């Protein structure tokens, strides 16, 4: 960095920072809170819609065993919040194609889920604004909740957009999409 030092530019930017800072309005924490609250409301609405979609899927696709999870290895367990320290290996679509968000509902009947290994959950994930591009992503920890009707919510810490991402995922590592996942 030393050979990049430039006293004149240092002075120019120092003066700029001082003058520009004087023009910056006072911090407005209330506005930040309002934005975050609005995002939370949007997330709730989107999750509700996803739940409704998940409930509708079995009726349409005769999925009485579409989401027939095995009894022993359900990550969320019991239908409530659970598995607070899941470490899942998440895989996304390969690079190249433009990402198409949102669930693609299908009447195809995937294999029943015999067991959920929350260390090997894969699902499609978009890039996020922190610079993480779509591709294979490994979560060191995440939390999951069974929302009902075969719908899982993954609190990944990856999706920082504020809008939950909904898609199909493979929760038993057999390479088949077998559950609806809401990634927040």
């Amino acid at each position: 960095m030393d050979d990049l030092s430039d006293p004149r530019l240092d002075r120019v930017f120092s003066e700029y920072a001082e003058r520009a800072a004087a023009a910056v309005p006072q911090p407005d924490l209330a506005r930040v809170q309002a934005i975050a609250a609005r995002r939370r409301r949007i997330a709730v609405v989107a999750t509700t819609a996803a739940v409704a979609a998940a409930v509708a899927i079995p009726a349409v696709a005769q999925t009485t065993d579409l989401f027939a999870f095995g009894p022993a290895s359900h990550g969320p367990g019991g239908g409530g919040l659970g598995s607070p320290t899941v470490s899942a290996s998440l895989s996304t679509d390969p690079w190249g194609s433009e990402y198409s968000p949102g669930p693609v509902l299908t009447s195809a009947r995937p294999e029943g889920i015999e067991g959920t290994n929350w260390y090997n959950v894969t699902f499609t994930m978009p890039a996020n604004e922190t610079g993480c591009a779509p591709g294979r992503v490994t979560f060191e920890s995440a939390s999951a909740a069974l929302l009902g009707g075969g719908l899982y919510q993954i609190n990944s810490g990856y999706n920082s957009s504020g809008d939950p991402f909904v898609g199909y995922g493979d929760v038993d590592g057999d390479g088949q999409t077998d559950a609806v996942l809401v990634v927040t």
Partner: protein
Amino acid sequence: MITTGEAQAPRADPVPGFEEFYATHFTRLIVQMYAYLGDLPQAQDVVQEAFARALPRWKRLATYDDPLAWVRRVAWNLATSRWRALRRFDRFAAQHRPDHVPPPSADIVALHSALRALSPRLRRAIVMHYLAGMSLAEIADHEQVAVGTVKSWLHRGRTALAAALTDPREEHPHG
């Protein structure tokens, strides 16, 4: 890459430490985005948005060694996207947007003009280095390039800025 944990919904209420963090870094981040975007309201929006995204994740971010890096990365990415849009509509907006704020000083305008002449990558590197105080390694990590590349960007950017900011009276004091 990701370390997270909370299962509960995001909270709108400030959690301990966030308010101080926000107050400490708000102005400085805006100044950086202002230099990059050349538009103060846009810079303010970008930074507010970044902090708004940080707030519901603050419990996790607060455990990071440098939570500011997360906010700064989000702000920069938003600014980059915003700048692309601004560039497309800049001419239109300039013709139709009423100016309700006092004009910036001549020095600020001069620096904005000089920065605007740089490519986005050079401009980001310059702003990160001179205004954010980021090291070569930090910039390289942020931009996902080699340190030598950042060095080259800074060298080229500095040369261009020096030429653009040269006062003709300094070159020809007697002319």
